[in-house]
């Protein structure tokens, strides 16, 4: 008979850290295995002289069991015969076997010999606690949660055991990892269901933490798009369900009045005046300056010059708007063309100009992976903080509409002549947009000193490649599926934890089908609310990952879900549809934001409530 079973405690010791129930209890970074295990013993003030005799594998497992059982576990509630241990690892007792073999050449040491069986660790735990229930030690290549769940469940269901310690205890030379679960039939407040998914989640979660990972928080946001010149204006447009597409106003092109675009509603002259730079600056830079300045101001950092600061910005067109002007004269006569117009052609020039304005010089770089560019900029920025290279990074991207990109997408015949309809069965293509979006990423240490409420944290990210075609996505959505799945794994979350997906959702036949297939593969049968905000802003190319990261962060802050405008007919191939209405009062803990681009470059980011 099957009964309810719960993990009432968990402990993970790996990479010089000790976690219990997800909380970091102890860390000792500069120690080898033996020193580290001793420091754990001393830190938890355990007095048990047998500890000193144990081999490293037994010390590791025994310490994990001590910490696992400390506090809550009432062993007197159970007869000793009903408390058991089901353990596993990959290399059995190889670590001590090797040491014993090395000693054989000299004088065989019996103190080592007795530890040349992996189940001795179970014995040490049983001796300490007077457990007398069933025990077994299994060897698997990797942690086999499926097996453990089945095996332990049958022992508990058949009342052979009432409580069981199970998990993984692996140690070979410098590498070690112990993850133990206490499984009981009682459901206390902290208990979580005993399932392989939960065990894997705890096991992998610690894998992430074991990189000595530090959290990266979002302290500021800034955005400029066709629906608003700043974050507040964008939010207001969402609430009014007012899209930013219109006939072309600023761009001088023959496509005016033929294809709608989502232009930022300010001229270069107006943008230059607002940002305090020359009016002949590339529009890509002007948009970047607007949003990056807003984001940094929002973060409330007093003096960025005292911090290790970076600017990681993405764009795909650089100063192409100006280069186009240059080429008109240059092509007639190659000694003609205003050089000022080509001076900032490179993508890197846009970043440099903005970084100079922000006063950031410690670190800057530019990423261009087409339409996933600024999502990659955000994860790269986060990694610079996690690797303790920087304290604060302004990360995101910018792109202006140019004739180059408009004509490029036009030749590919993927521009919708009407306002785009992402994820609709009758979608006709994308509308080009422009804008910039940045988040200010800060380290945990800096976050504590900021006198403001943090938005959320960046809990997961992944960059995978579809490796299918230069411009088209694979029909099975391999790249997008991998990006979403691996970002989830990085965050230690399950698909069911996601409360909202900000889709890449360009509105092209190809993207929405591939992305939809990937969403189905990962989330079926229970889909979170999702929408493409490109139905408001158009596709802002290299800026889209940054802009949509800002929207994702705001979804968590304000408890909102954005509508997918103009959606009418659900795609035939799928059983889900995007959200049609602007929703408020939602509890949004985790948001996934997708950005996929030419060249198969797929990136997903996950933002989580703190």
């Amino acid at each position, binding site marked *: 008979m099957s009964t309810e079973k719960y993990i009432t405690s968990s402990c993970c010791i790996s990479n010089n850290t000790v976690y219990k129930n997800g909380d970091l209890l102890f860390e000792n970074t500069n120690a080898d295995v033996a020193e580290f295990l001793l420091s754990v013993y001393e830190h938890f003030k355990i007095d048990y002289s047998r500890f000193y005799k144990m081999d490293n594998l037994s010390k590791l497992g025994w310490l994990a069991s001590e910490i696992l059982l400390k506090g809550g576990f009432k062993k007197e509630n159970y007869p000793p015969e009903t408390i058991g241990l089901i353990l596993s690892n990959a290399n059995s007792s190889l670590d001590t076997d090797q040491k014993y073999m090395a000693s054989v050449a000299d004088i065989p040491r019996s103190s080592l010999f007795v530890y040349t069986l992996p189940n001795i660790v179970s014995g040490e735990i049983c001796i300490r606690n007077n457990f007398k229930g069933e025990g077994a030690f299994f060897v698997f290549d990797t942690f086999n949660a499926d097996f453990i769940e089945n095996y332990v469940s049958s022992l508990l269901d058949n009342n052979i055991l009432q409580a069981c310690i199970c998990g993984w205890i692996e140690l070979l030379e410098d590498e070690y990892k112990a993850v133990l679960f206490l499984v009981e039939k009682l459901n206390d407040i902290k208990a979580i269901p005993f399932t392989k998914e939960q065990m894997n989640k705890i096991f992998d979660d610690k894998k992430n933490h074991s990189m000595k990972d530090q959290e990266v928080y979002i302290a500021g946001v800034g955005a400029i798009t066709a629906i608003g010149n700043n974050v507040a204006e964008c939010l207001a447009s969402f609430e009014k369900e007012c899209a930013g597409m219109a006939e072309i106003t600023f761009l001088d092109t023959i496509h005016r009045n033929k294809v709608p675009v989502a232009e930022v509603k300010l001229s270069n002259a107006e943008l230059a005046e607002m940002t305090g730079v020359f009016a002949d600056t590339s529009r890509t830079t002007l948009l970047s300056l607007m949003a990056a300045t807003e984001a940094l101001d929002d973060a409330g950092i007093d003096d960025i010059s005292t911090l290790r600061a970076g600017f990681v910005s993405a764009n795909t067109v650089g100063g192409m708007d100006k280069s186009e002007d240059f080429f008109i004269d240059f092509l007639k006569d*190659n000694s003609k063309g205003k050089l000022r117009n080509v001076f900032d052609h490179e993508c890197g020039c846009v970043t440099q100009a903005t970084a100079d304005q922000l006063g950031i010089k410690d670190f800057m770089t530019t990423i261009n992976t087409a339409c996933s560019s600024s999502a990659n900029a955000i994860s790269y920025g986060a990694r610079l903080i996690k690797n303790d290279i920087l304290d604060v990074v302004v990360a995101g991207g910018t792109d202006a509409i140019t004739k180059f990109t408009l004509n490029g997408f036009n*030749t590919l015949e993927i521009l919708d002549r009407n306002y785009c309809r992402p994820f609709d069965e009758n979608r006709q293509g994308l509308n080009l947009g422009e804008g910039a979006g940045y988040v200010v990423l800060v380290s945990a240490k800096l976050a504590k000193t900021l006198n403001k409420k943090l938005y959320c944290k960046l809990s997961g990210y992944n960059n995978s*490649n579809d490796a299918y075609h230069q411009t088209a996505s694979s029909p099975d959505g391999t790249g997008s599926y991998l990006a979403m799945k691996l970002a989830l794994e990085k965050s230690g979350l399950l698909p069911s934890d996601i409360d909202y997906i900000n889709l890449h959702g360009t509105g092209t036949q190809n993207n929405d089908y591939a992305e939809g297939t990937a969403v189905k593969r990962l989330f079926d049968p229970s889909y979170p609310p999702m929408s493409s905000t490109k139905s408001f802003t158009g596709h802002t190319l290299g800026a889209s990952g940054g802009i949509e990261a800002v929207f994702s962060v705001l979804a968590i802050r304000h408890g909102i879900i954005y509508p997918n405008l103009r959606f009418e007919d659900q795609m035939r191939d799928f059983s889900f549809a995007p959200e049609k209405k602007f929703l408020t009062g939602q509890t949004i803990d985790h948001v996934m934001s997708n950005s996929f681009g030419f060249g198969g470059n797929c990136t997903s980011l996950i933002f989580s409530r703190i």
Partner: protein
Amino acid sequence: MKTFIRSSACISAQNTFGKQELFPEVTDITGTCLRAIEPDYSLLIDPKLIRRMSHIIKMGVAAARECLTEGKIDMPGAIVTGTALGCLEDTITFVTRLIELNEELLPPTAFIQSTHNTVAAQIALQLKCHNYNNNFVHKGISFESALFDAMMLLKENEADNILVGGIDEMTDTSFAILSRLGLYRRWPVSNLSLFEISAKGTIGGEGAAFFLLTDKPSTDNLAEFKGLQTFYRPKDNREVEQKIMAFLALHSLQIEDIDLVITGKNGDLVNDKIYDQLVGSLFSNVAVANFKHLCGEYPTAAAFALWLAANVIKKQEVPSVVMERSLKNTEPRKILIYNHYMNIYHSMMLVVAC
């Protein structure tokens, strides 16, 4: 954790591709621009694909493939590239057509291949490599940014056997524009006497150099890649010296410990002032080599320097054509590469014997 260079491959104005010797014969060209010597691509890339590929894509894909072959790796754990100017040829083709044809009836091919990430994408596509794929486009430190990413990935245990490369191409149009911007010599010069005739301007260049980075030691590895640092707009030469000393100190080294310094000297009067001053001060007692007379100046030329350093360490010989001030130690084990791009972006790389 250590970072090793497992293998390398380089396409440049020199005969550097697929050769056992570093420079079997040195290219001596009188002009103001060095173009890459292209290998027989049909041996490396499917001929059907070659027809559609631009110059930079062919160079990049071929160098990447050769690097994987050299490193005996079928599938890299990640692909990271750096290119300041990206796919210029296709970009210029598309801009030219859109102006000349007044935005009508444009063919899409040039646009499709114009995106800066095309080389990294094409490598992934041909290998069917779904792993991490990134591309940096930050002027004179595009390649260094890519290297930095690769080093972090290794440290984070996210990937091993990371393919990292620096690629830039020269086209007639970009050469004409950059000449007008005053980057190059006004009069033709023999590249081998670039440093003897002092004048304004350097010679243009292009190339592709790829590396496989791993944290696994092996006797096959070329060298250990010990460190990388970049800095931006130093106040003066004093700050440059301080940055270099601090960088060495970070790795418990002093300038006296360095067997060879490879500088980014390019023959331009203003540009070289910094190097000349260093050679008279901080570098006054160390062997000095240069490389841009061999490959020309381009934003990712530091990749050529890294290829040179890694192979000098593996082969334990320094070709005389690169030497400015000769070696005291004939077995170079520690090499510092110091390069700057227009005195805005400066980079330091440390390569040592395994």
